[in-house]
């Protein structure tokens, strides 16, 4: 076996100088052999530790590829998230339709002429039945919400497992400029959205804060933080 060293490269240069005008296929094969032998000897000079580390990195990359596969990213992105979006859209539409029906009934009853009790009673019965029917949306939306929750759990389990296996640390900051802008707007304009039960302040607390206008209101507000 030819061993690669300075002499080999000098031979290679000489060979190329001599054969510049008439290189054959055999010559190319010969060149490839010399080059490969040179590289092999180059790699042999690598420290065994570096080689082991490279193997570990290769193993880690293989394992990461397997874990990404387990995440089922494509299925989540192409199937589960769009399906959950459709379910949420259907929920919004169903609640909107039900609300409209109920409000139409209420408005019709408020505007109804009650001078004829029989006709008025018939109208009330009809509208009440429509309200009952409209309220049935809750059963279906409950089932739709269950499907969305299932999707969120599916994603949570996989992402949680992936983060655990990869020992991932949370990225600090924002992924995109628009994400940063949205967060800044929310903070600047106090956009928190609805609070859950037990969080936020109730109407009676709000009333106290608003009413104590000129009587040390800041002190009262401060009490709310203590």
């Amino acid at each position, binding site marked *: 076996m030819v061993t690669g060293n300075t002499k080999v490269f000098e031979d290679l240069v000489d060979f190329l100088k001599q054969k510049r005008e008439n290189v054959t296929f055999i010559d190319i094969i010969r060149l490839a052999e010399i080059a490969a032998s040179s590289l092999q000897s180059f790699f042999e000079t690598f420290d065994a530790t570096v080689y082991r580390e490279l193997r570990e990195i290769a193993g880690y990359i293989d394992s990461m590829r397997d874990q990404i596969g387990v995440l089922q990213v494509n299925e989540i992105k192409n199937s589960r998230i769009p399906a959950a979006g459709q379910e949420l859209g259907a929920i919004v539409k169903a609640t*909107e339709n039900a*609300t*409209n029906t109920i*409000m139409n009934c*209420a*408005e019709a009853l*408020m505007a109804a002429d009650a001078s004829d009790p029989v006709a008025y009673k018939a109208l009330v019965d009809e509208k009440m039945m429509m309200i009952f029917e409209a309220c049935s949306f809750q059963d279906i939306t409950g089932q739709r919400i269950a499907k969305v929750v299932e999707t969120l759990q599916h994603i949570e389990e996989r992402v949680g497992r992936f983060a655990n296996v990869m020992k991932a640390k949370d990225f600090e900051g924002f992924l995109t400029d628009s994400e940063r802008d949205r967060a800044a707007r929310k903070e600047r*304009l*106090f*956009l*928190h*959205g*609805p*609070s859950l039960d037990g*969080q*936020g*302040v*109730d*109407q009676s607390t*709000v009333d106290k*804060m*608003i009413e104590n206008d000129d009587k040390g*209101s800041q002190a009262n*507000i401060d009490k*709310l*933080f203590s």
Partner: protein
Amino acid sequence: MAVDLSMPVLVVDDYNTMIRIIRNLLKQIGFQDIDDAADGSAALGKMRDKRYGLVISDWNMEPMTGYELLKEVRGDPGLAKTPFIMVTAESKTENVIAAKKAGVNNYIVKPFNAQTLQSKIEAVFAD
């Protein structure tokens, strides 16, 4: 109720259902001249075209929020004295404080009922 029921009222909310609910409640109270707008900037445009006796606004809207609308109204000498009630699901203490500092006349937390709306309107005009 010492409130002039003939005064025009502007309801600002990005949800048509909520506008409809507030409009019906106001009608029940006795108000007849009720307009609506879907966000702060649309409301501001209407307020500059017509003099409203009361504004009832949501907080969380786009592009202009009710909070920004309130500050714009209080900063405009022609509109600054318009009574302004915030009706919102934003119920953090800092929201109430910010609204109060910006000059809100009253603050209603959603969900609310007709009695709450009426009592807050009365409180605003009793001052």
